[in-house]
Structure formats: structure tokens, C-alpha cells
């Protein structure tokens, strides 16, 4: 077949787009593809829903036509194979994320009325993939085809959409927790003991337990973490030992929190029982890599000539580190450490078998007693949702936990910005 006439037309359109600062076409294709998706989707949904066979077949034909059109335009426009793959993935994700939440419950996929889950799954995935190809290939078209400003505009547009999709769950999480949780934060909630499996009363012991865990974590992880960073950055020469330490820090950073929890169960619990001490040690190990990496980064940013200046006036290595290198690096080290402690405040899995009780632990008198903690409290409340009326307290606990963790993170960022030392 001969497609030359189409190529000419495309060249003409391209020239048009080049002349105009604002690419009409690329927005046109986006609009078109969303229209296609919408029609296709509604036709499929209504197909089993409407009794009228005429409407059904009409919609089916329309959808098939549009699908053929998409395939046709795809092959005519000489796209590369990898573009197809990229488009499928992007379109799939974009569409499944846009369409599924927008569907009201009564127009959901229950209209299929198909019992076998295989069919249900196949149908939904086929629709999404087809629509994905349609939307993806058409919306990616301008990026690859036109060499003008239009491609940049549309690339910008698509990347912007992707970051908006990233922010969407964040907005949902934060919005819901603030709206539903802030009302539950009262003085009584903060200062009273847990009563009746968390349906009544407050969370005072859990709040104190979380603060104690953070303090304990700091006591374990700060000396070890900063010390390790000083060795790696100031003393160590590049060699096998540094490499092994570095790999171990990386593995430690990637170790799942539940693995830390089981390690604590196997190692610390036989020694110290289910206690604050066990929990703090485990959390210390968990945050250690964060603190090491942050401190290393901070020490690395101190320029070499400052150290040399110190050696030149006769200072020893330790004096140089203590008096010259550490002070300017300190704000960044503190920032990293505070971020690590924020992580410790929110973790559940490492302490659930090693340090916490849901109720009855109270305020520990010494480090060998068990504690209560906010994340674990929230876990138990979440498990009770639907069985007991814990919703109000659960939202309030989630709000408080989020406020503590994000407050700590914000504090870290403020420290970094305020005391930043520029060289």
C-alpha cells in the first residue's frame, strides 16, 4: 500500500504546528483519545446493561470503528516498537488511575454480570489495555513526531499529568486524615488511658511509648551512626574493609522492617524480654543506615582545604575532626538523624513482636518493661474496624501519628535550611 499522500498531509500539519506557537494538534489528539476512551468504555459498560439490541450493536460498531482507526493511524505514522510498549504502560496506568476512581459505584464493573472471575479479569484488563494503547499512542504521538516546540509542550504536559497523579493519593490521604482526625484530638484523648479496647478513652500511654522509643533509638543509633560515618569519611582508606562496610550499610538499609522484627524476636527478646530496650535496639539498627548515609554526605561536603588548613597549624587528625570538620557538618547530620527518628516513630513491624502491648502496658518504670506505641495502637484499632466502634479514635490516632512523623520531618527540613553552611 502507498501512504505517501498521508505523509504529505502529516508534513502539512507539522508545518502548521511549527508556525503556531501553541500546538493545537497535540491538544487535539489528547482530547480525541480521551473521547475514544470515554465512548469505548461507556459502550462496553452499557452493553450488558441496556436491553436494546440496536443501541448495543451501534455502540459496538462505533467502538470497533474507533479501534480500527487507532490501529490504522498507529501503523501509518511509523512509530517505533519501543514507543508502543511505553504507550501501553503509560496509557494503562493513566487510564486505570483516571477512570476507575471516577466511576460511580452503580456504573462500576458489576454491570458485566459475569460470574467467572477469569472473565471479569480478562474483560477489564483487555478494555484497559485497548484504551491504554489508544490514549497512550495518540497522546505520545506529538512527542515523537514533531520536532518543533509542540513536542516540548506536550511532553511537559504529559509529565505534569504524571506528577499530578503522584500527588493525587497524597492529597486523598492527607485530606481524609485531617478532615476526619482533627475533631478527635481533645485534651482527654491525649491524656487519658486506653479504655474498652480503644473504643473509649485516650492514647496517653501510646504517645509516651512512642516518644520513649524515639529517645531510645537516638541513644542507640546516633553514636554508632555518626561514628561509622566519621570512620568511613575521615579515617578509612579505600579498600576491601570500606567496601564491605558500605555493602553492609546498604543491605541494612534495604532490610525489610519485619525482618528486623524477627531478628529482635530471636535475639533480643530472649535476653531482655518484650521491652522498651529490645524495641529501642531494633529501631536503632533500623535507623542506623539512614544516619550513616546522612552523616557521610554531610562530612563529604566539608571541603578538603579546610582540613589541610587545620593540619598546617599543627592540629592532629582528631582535633581537626572535632573542631574543624564536625561543626559545619553538624546541621546536616542532625537533619539526617531527625529524619531517621521520624522513621522510627512510625514503624510498626519491628516493635510489634519485641516491645509493645496493645493495652495494659502503661508507662514503663524501667527500660525492661513493655510499652504501648502509636503505630501499633493504630494497627490494633484498624483490625477492630467493622467489629467495634473504633473509627473516631482510629482517625484521631492516625492524625496524631501523621502529625508527629511529619512534624519531625518538617523540623529536619527547617534545621537544614536554617543552619545550612555554604562553602
Amino acid at each position: 500500500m502507498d501512504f505517501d499522500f498521508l505523509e504529505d498531509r502529516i508534513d502539512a500539519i507539522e508545518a502548521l504546528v511549527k508556525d503556531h506557537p501553541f500546538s493545537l494538534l497535540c491538544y487535539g489528539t489528547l482530547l480525541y483519545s480521551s473521547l475514544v476512551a470515554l465512548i469505548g468504555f461507556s459502550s462496553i459498560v452499557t452493553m450488558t446493561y441496556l436491553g436494546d439490541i440496536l443501541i448495543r450493536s451501534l455502540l459496538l460498531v462505533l467502538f470497533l470503528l474507533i479501534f480500527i482507526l487507532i490501529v490504522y493511524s498507529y501503523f501509518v505514522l511509523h512509530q517505533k516498537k519501543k514507543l508502543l510498549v511505553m504507550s501501553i504502560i503509560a496509557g494503562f496506568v493513566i487510564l486505570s488511575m483516571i477512570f476507575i476512581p471516577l466511576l460511580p459505584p452503580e456504573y462500576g464493573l458489576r454491570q458485566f454480570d459475569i460470574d467467572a472471575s477469569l472473565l471479569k479479569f480478562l474483560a477489564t484488563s483487555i478494555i484497559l489495555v485497548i484504551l491504554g494503547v489508544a490514549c497512550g499512542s495518540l497522546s505520545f504521538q506529538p512527542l515523537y513526531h514533531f520536532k518543533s516546540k509542540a513536542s516540548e509542550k506536550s511532553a511537559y504536559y504529559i509529565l505534569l499529568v504524571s506528577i499530578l497523579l503522584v500527588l493525587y493519593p497524597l492529597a486523598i490521604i492527607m485530606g481524609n486524615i485531617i478532615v476526619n482526625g482533627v475533631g478527635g484530638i481533645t485534651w482527654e484523648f491525649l491524656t487519658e488511658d486506653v479504655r474498652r479496647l480503644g473504643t473509649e478513652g485516650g492514647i496517653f500511654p501510646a504517645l509516651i511509648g512512642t516518644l520513649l522509643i524515639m529517645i531510645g533509638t537516638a541513644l542507640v543509633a546516633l553514636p554508632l551512626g555518626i561514628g561509622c560515618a566519621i570512620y568511613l569519611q575521615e579515617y578509612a582508606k579505600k579498600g576491601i574493609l570500606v567496601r564491605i562496610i558500605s555493602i553492609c550499610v546498604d543491605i541494612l538499609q534495604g532490610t525489610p522492617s519485619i525482618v528486623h522484627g524477627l531478628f529482635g524476636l530471636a535475639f533480643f527478646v530472649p535476653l531482655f524480654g518484650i521491652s522498651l530496650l529490645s524495641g529501642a535496639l531494633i529501631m536503632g539498627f533500623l535507623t542506623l543506615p539512614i544516619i550513616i548515609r546522612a552523616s557521610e554526605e554531610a562530612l563529604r561536603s566539608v571541603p578538603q582545604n579546610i582540613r589541610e588548613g587545620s593540619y598546617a597549624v599543627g592540629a592532629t587528625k582528631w582535633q581537626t575532626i572535632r573542631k574543624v570538620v564536625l561543626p559545619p557538618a553538624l546541621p546536616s547530620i542532625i537533619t539526617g538523624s531527625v529524619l531517621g527518628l521520624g522513621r522510627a516513630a512510625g514503624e510498626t513491624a519491628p516493635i510489634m513482636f519485641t516491645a509493645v502491648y496493645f493495652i495494659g502496658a502503661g508507662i514503663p518504670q524501667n527500660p525492661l518493661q513493655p510499652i504501648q506505641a502509636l503505630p501499633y495502637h493504630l494497627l490494633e484499632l484498624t483490625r477492630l474496624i467493622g467489629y467495634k466502634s473504633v473509627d473516631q479514635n482510629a482517625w484521631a490516632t492516625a492524625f496524631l501519628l501523621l502529625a508527629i512523623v511529619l512534624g519531625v520531618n518538617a523540623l529536619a527540613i527547617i534545621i537544614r535550611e536554617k543552619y545550612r553552611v555554604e562553602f
Partner: protein
Amino acid sequence: MLLSRTLKEEIIKHIFLVIAAFSIFIILFIFFFLFSEAYPAFTSIGFDIFNTEWSVSKEHYGIGAAIFGTLIVTIGAMLIAIPLGIASAIFLAELAPYKLRVFLKPIIELLAGIPSIVYGFIGIVLLIKFLRISFDSLSGYSYLAGSLILGVMALPIIISMSDDALKAVPRGFKEASLAVGATKWQTIRKVTIPSAISGISAAVIMGIGRAVGETMAVSLVLPNIMKIPIPPFDIFESTGTTLTALIVNQMGESSGIQTHVLFSAAVILFLIVAIMSIASNILRERIEKKFKGG
């Protein structure tokens, strides 16, 4: 005097060496204790541990279904997180105006800071309800729910590491491309992304590691039934679990050989994630070397 001063320096140096070696000890301890707890399971069950049959009453403990679930849920999560994450990172690193970048970067960090239990709670009260209604499924607890939650949770790490990788590409590379007449988008596609590809791969591997090891949120939204759904790829079905969810849900009331089996699940998790960490580290080192030379 001079001697004591150098002696003191030597002592301080060795103290720091011992502190630094601590992380090696921790890794060895973790491995040793997990393995010693898991060992009885390997000796008494052997390779049957990879079976898919799990029944506490019959004392059949096969974690195959959980391994399969981990695989499916992770793939689902990555289908969401990789394209979105990399696209967002490109936007942040290359296209966003400075003011927008300064505004968005802490927000992405915020997303990383949300504790996993909060994701799990939101998953229960919002996501599960939503899935139950719109997909007309029995409970809403499914692989799909796990994948959605994990996808969102893996996003920040992929975005921030890819962003770092893209930012590490030397200016000279881009300027050379722009100087020969390429547009900004062409430069990004043909120069910046290929140069940063090992850093982006490292980001993706770390994201996968996070998804494999994530516990609390996943354990709450998964069905936690130790069976592979029929058909196996049915992400809507209310059966299935992951390794992490299995451990969290059964550790509390397990005893005897079951506990050892759960520890062996932890050993498998630890090995997977350790391999991924090392791979990610190697890729990052490669990108550092590449740009230091150039």
C-alpha cells in the same frame, strides 16, 4: 609527649574502626539468628517448604503461595510506580521551574515520610471499600489492593533516586546537545535519560526492594488466605498473601515448626532484598565512576 599524642590518635582511630565495623556485625547477627531459627524448618520439611499447600491442622507448611503472591503484588506495584515515578522524576529534574521544584520536592519527601501503618489504615477505610463496591468483589481484599498501595508507597523512592540520577548528569552533556540544535525534549530523551539510565535502574531496583519488603500496609489490605487464586493472575480474587503479610499475621499465634517456617520466609525475604541492595549499589557506583571520568 609526641608519642602519647600519636598513641591517643591511634586509639581514637581504632575506636572509630570498631564502631564502623558494627554494621558488619549487625548483618552477620541478623543472618545468623534468622538462619538458626529457620534451620529446623529446612531440616524437617526440606524443599517441600516451597509447596503451595498450607494447613495448620494438617501441619503442611508450604510457602509457595506467599512467594507467588509477593511476585504478583510486586509486579502490579511496579506497573504503577515505574512509569509514573520516572516521568515525575524527569519533570522534577529537567522541566519544572526552580520555584515549582523547590515546592514539589519536599512534598514528595512527605509522601515518603507517611508511616506504612497509616497507608494500611487508609487502605482499609477507603481503598478496600472502594474496590468492594466498584469491582463487586466479595471483600475488596485482593492482590489489586496490595499492588495499588505498594505502587504509591514505592513512588517516592523511585522519584527521588531517579531525580538524583538525572541531576548528576553533567551540564556539559546537555549543553553540547543543545548547542548542535537539539530541542530540550530531544536532549532529555537522547542524552540525559541514557546517561542516567544506571541511576534510574538503581532507583527501580530500590523501589522493587521496598515493595517486596513492605509489611504493615500490605498485610492489612491483602486477603491473607494462603492459596493461589484460580486463575493465578486474578488480581480481584479474595485469596492470596505475601511473605511479609504471612509473617505478620501468623507469627503471633504460631508455635513449633510453624514458627521456624515463618523464620525461613524471613530468610528468603532477607536474601532477596540483600541481593537487590547490592545490585542497586553496584549500579550507583558505576554512574559515579562514569561521570567522574567524564
